[in-house]
């Protein structure tokens, strides 16, 4: 394991965190927007997406989203209105396996983590500035 002695190492890492959590926010918003999508293009209800975070390299490194995976959990079944063409023989409709409370917690996590990375960026700049103060 190595730590990059580069002056900009911390900036790159913090920015990679910002990017990753920005993407995570995208995933959460897709899940929320499609919470009642019964046709995700393949005739199946929408399956919620989950972002997989991966360290960019061994040691101190940034983060990236390596892939988006679909949640293969069961769809929710809700009782259809009478006459709904999407209803099955028993009168039920399959709804996406998105649970809004879970997504809202994920939203909170993503936005807090985004803030944390932004705080690191800011603080690191301050640290470097205080080093440069010593030159004076």
């Amino acid at each position: 394991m190595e730590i990059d002695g580069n002056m900009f190492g911390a900036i790159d890492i913090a920015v990679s965190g910002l990017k990753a959590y920005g993407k995570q926010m995208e995933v959460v918003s897709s899940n929320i927007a499609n919470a009642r999508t019964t046709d995700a293009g393949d005739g199946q209800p929408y399956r919620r997406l989950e972002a997989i975070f991966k360290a960019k390299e061994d040691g101190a490194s940034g983060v990236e989203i390596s892939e988006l995976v679909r949640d293969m959990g069961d769809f929710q079944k809700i009782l259809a209105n009478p006459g709904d063409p999407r209803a099955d023989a028993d009168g039920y409709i399959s709804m996406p396996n998105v649970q809004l409370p879970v997504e809202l917690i994920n939203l909170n996590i993503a936005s807090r983590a985004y803030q944390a990375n932004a705080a690191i960026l800011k603080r690191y700049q301050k640290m470097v500035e205080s080093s440069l103060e010593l030159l004076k």
Partner: protein
Amino acid sequence: MAVNFNPDVSSIFPNIEAGKAADSTEAKVNFGKAIAKSLNKVNELHDKADASIVELLSGKSQDINSVVASVAKADMSFKLLVGVRDKLVAAYKETMKMQI
């Protein structure tokens, strides 16, 4: 974007090691060259920051975070350069004030 700005001048001063005076018979150390080199690097970082801002504003890219990163790097390296310059000018003035 990986920009490696390295304030280490040992590559430019091959005959200076920590705690060891330069060998005067070796090639003469050119401080001006070192400054010019780091100036070029700072300039390069500024150009990159400039380019990323233009790309963002022209709609070519929508990656605000990369802009933030490149601007932060340009800002930090510029501050370092200004710090070194101020010190240099102060040293020059100090030398000129010396009684002969």
